């Protein structure tokens, strides 16, 4: 049983990992076909992973409704709104769920008039909080903080038309800051992160890193 629970997944991860590396370097048609099919399978398995999140979300809100915990009414709102949208999804403008997706209908209406405004507004609220935080906490307490502050001010002025209106030097300075010192720092971070990705990927393939298998009985 331990073979099935622990060894088999690790062996599978090793085999597909080595295949994934190998098909990149082998130009033969068979290898390229294998790469195509593996990526197709990966796409399809990804689609199922969505349901993990969906079931977790609905479980969370269902348990709140059952236990009549604090704010359980809002969990009911989640179920009702999910239900209404789900009905539109399944109705598919009259074609039903076993037909290609319709071009218009309640589904698109809900998306444009509920999903889009809510999503856009949620993140726009941050504009207010970032302004408040910047006023209260953005202090040039040290030379490094002063460099950060000056750099932020130059970029904020340089990227909007008012910077060029004040002086042509401001957008030029902002562009230089982005294209030279910022580039250098980001490249350094990118190199470091990439080395980390390679190391972690190798650890996964060789079975040293097993956290992705989840806990539970070995």
């Amino acid at each position: 049983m331990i073979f099935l629970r622990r060894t088999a997944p690790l062996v599978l991860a090793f085999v597909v990992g080595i295949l994934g590396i190998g098909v990149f370097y082998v130009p033969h048609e068979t290898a390229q076909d294998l790469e195509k099919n593996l990526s197709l399978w990966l796409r399809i398995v990804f689609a199922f992973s969505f349901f993990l999140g969906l079931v977790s979300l609905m479980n969370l809100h269902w348990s709140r409704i059952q236990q009549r915990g604090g704010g359980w009414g809002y969990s009911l709102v989640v179920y009702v709104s999910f239900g209404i949208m789900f009905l539109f999804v399944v109705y598919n403008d009259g074609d039903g769920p076993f037909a290609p997706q319709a071009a218009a209908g309640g589904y698109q209406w809900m998306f444009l008039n509920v999903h889009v405004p809510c999503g856009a507004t949620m993140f726009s609220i941050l504009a207010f909080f970032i302004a408040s935080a910047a006023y209260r906490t953005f202090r040039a307490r040290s030379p490094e903080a002063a460099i950060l502050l000056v750099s932020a001010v130059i970029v904020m002025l340089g990227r909007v038309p008012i910077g060029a209106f004040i002086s042509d030097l401001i957008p030029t300075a902002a562009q230089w800051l982005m294209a030279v010192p910022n580039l250098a720092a980001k490249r350094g971070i990118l190199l470091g992160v990439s080395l980390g990705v390679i190391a972690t990927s190798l650890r996964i393939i060789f079975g040293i890193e097993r956290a992705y298998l989840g806990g539970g009985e070995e």
Partner: protein
Amino acid sequence: MNRDTFLFLGFVGLFAVVNIVLLSTGTVTADWTGLGIIVAAGLTLCLYTFLYKDNLLFKFAEHVYVGVAAAYIFGQVWYPTLYGEIIEPMTGSEQGASQDTWWLLIPTLLGCLMLTRFSARIGWLSRIAFAFVVGLGAGFAIPRTISSYIINQIEPTLGALSLTVDGLNLFIILVGVVTVLIYFFFSVEHTGVVGRASKVGIWFLMISFGASFGYTIMARLSLLIGRVTFLFRDWLGLNIAQ
């Protein structure tokens, strides 16, 4: 009733009055499009009430968003992939299930195995699916990371230096990349030459973080401008000059 209750009831009442005026003047049309604009404006304003304090209206709009988003994404997964690439080819609605389509059973089975994670008894079966996804993802990532993010990034950093503006910039980039990498190398104590180089790396990082901060402010303000433009132009019908 306390002050907050008065405020929120007043807010809801004001919203209703404004919409009645907009509908009666024809600024918002009395059809599905108009109703959509009113719903969108209402949800937008409910979410913005959070700026006063956390409240019932905000929580209501937030939870509506969660429910609608979850169902929307279900639709995006069902139609193109689950129905379009698995059910329809395998049930042969057009050409009949061909030999090729039976291969689809393998990723479908792997996907179903993933869902066993919710069962305490057979949840271990999901490890097979996760091993496939994570192992293959790691295998695909390694050669591409080496090529795109390491070799193709080191090469332009080591470009030919010259006594021109471009050459000077290239030198600054080289110094910046090396000193930032030295800063992140924590296995060696940051003293002496390493300490000084690490200090220079910190300066480059501060410039970068300042630039990122400036761009982040720009991004969030852009989102706010977008919402305010919608409220002024599409809902209230005000003239937004171009």
